[in-house]
């Protein structure tokens, strides 16, 4: 399964996209933001199951932290109401802080795990928090054709 992408930059600028896979939202616990842990079959030969499941689980835990209703969110809400919500002009909300952490986490995961395998995660916030988009790029590294890519044989013959 080893592909020869060395870094994220190369993936973004040189590789050609094969398809996009979408991990949908899991609404079984209500309207909280949570993604399904179901492994998409299109990624069967591109990445190990456990890695993707781990990523989704970590993301879900971040979202749980962001949307937690407890003492801190109550204080934040009361303070904001008392100042007619003007305090949000100078203060970042807890949700925004967690979103920054999520963005950093996704970037790190892309660099370490997904780009070397020819995949790219898109932050769910860029897709309306509806889906976790996984872009699948052509599998240039392997000489044998991979089922998900019709261009790999053309690509390798062009060299």
């Amino acid at each position, binding site marked *: 399964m080893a592909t020869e992408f060395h870094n994220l930059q190369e993936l973004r600028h040189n590789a050609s996209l094969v398809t*996009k896979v979408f991990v949908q939202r899991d609404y079984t616990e209500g*309207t909280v933001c949570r993604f399904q842990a179901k492994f998409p079959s299109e990624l069967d030969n591109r990445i190990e199951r456990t890695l993707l499941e781990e990523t989704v689980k970590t993301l879900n835990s971040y979202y749980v932290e962001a949307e937690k209703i407890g003492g801190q969110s109550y204080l934040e809400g009361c303070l904001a109401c008392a100042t*007619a919500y003007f305090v949000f002009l100078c203060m970042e909300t807890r949700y925004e802080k967690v979103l920054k952490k999520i963005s950093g986490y996704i970037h790190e995961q892309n660099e370490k795990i997904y780009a070397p395998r020819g995949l790219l995660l898109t932050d769910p916030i860029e897709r309306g928090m509806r889906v976790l988009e996984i872009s699948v790029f052509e599998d240039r590294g392997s000489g044998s054709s991979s089922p998900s890519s019709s261009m790999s044989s053309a690509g390798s013959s062009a060299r």
Partner: protein
Amino acid sequence: MSAVMITRKVRKWEKLPGKNTFCCDGRVMMARQKGVFYLTLFLIVGTCSLFFAFECPYLAVHLSPTVPVFAIVLFFFVIAMLLRTSFSDPGVLPRALPEEATFIEMEIEAANGNVPAGQRPPPRIRNVQINNQIVKLKYCYTCKIFRPPRASHCSICDNCVDRFDHHCPWVGNCVGKRNYRYFYMFTLSLSLLTIYIFTFDIVHVVMRSVDNGFLNTLKETPGTVLEVLVCFFTLWSVVGLTGFHTYLISLNQTTNEDIKGSWSGKNRVQNPYSHKNCFKNCFEVLCGPTYPSVLDRRGVMQEGSPVSAASAVPPSSSSNPVSQTTKTTAPLIPNEHTPDDAKPSIADSAEKNSSPREETPMAPPLASPEPDAEVAVAKDPVH
């Protein structure tokens, strides 16, 4: 003669489909019809101005200076809440990009299997179990997504809104997940302000009449009559509205669900989102996290970014970079019923991609919105 192209930064709000208007370079987001909003603003500011002009000087001296001070604080709070409700993104769900829309279509077709020619395909519904309750997620033909639970499509703004409550013409915007608490604080504080002004109007008239007589009082402060009239009629509606929303909050229901009777209790259907505890429900709705906007209105458009699937450009149109604001066709049916609730011919055309079928002569815009003639910056979607 060489033409010099000055490209200006195009922000994402300029390309957003839907019928919203944006101001201050994307910072402010409202519905198109703003007339009633201006009326609301005029009534509040006008009545309070009269109060400050006629009542406050007298009451500050003869009663207490805290009376106008508290009125000013309340007035600013009301205006702040109104503007916050009107100008913020209610929780609009962005439309699906082409790849996502295609992916969902493929999933639907796979789930439906082979539909024999001439037969209507089953309605696009996903069932999900929330808290031991089966909730149906409907497919939105305009936005090309399966709506999350509690989301609904507003036909006035032509957007799917998360936790859609209602479209309020008085604030000139939808009320949804992100601005519901501001809307509630607005109605609550406006009720208090109305009661406050009404009470002190009466107090003022009584106090003055003791000295000068009733008719003389009315002649000296004609504004009082106007204020009392406005407050009297406002009181019933606004206080009633506040009471209604307090009731909804305690049950963790939206106006939309209440009107449709989604959790009315027949067929043993219960609200799966309610914590069954009044305080917990209020806590969640009013003190929950402040959700961020997923629209990214102020982001700069990248070259080559795909347009949403719902506003595709026909290949024959000439690019016209100037006109940006008017967008997509609204569904003909002004509510969020899927075409499957309507005539069969409309549903047939909706599925025209999946199986060969005779097209009806008039292509209904509900199923596949007509592409607009403009929208210049469309690049080919990433293949």
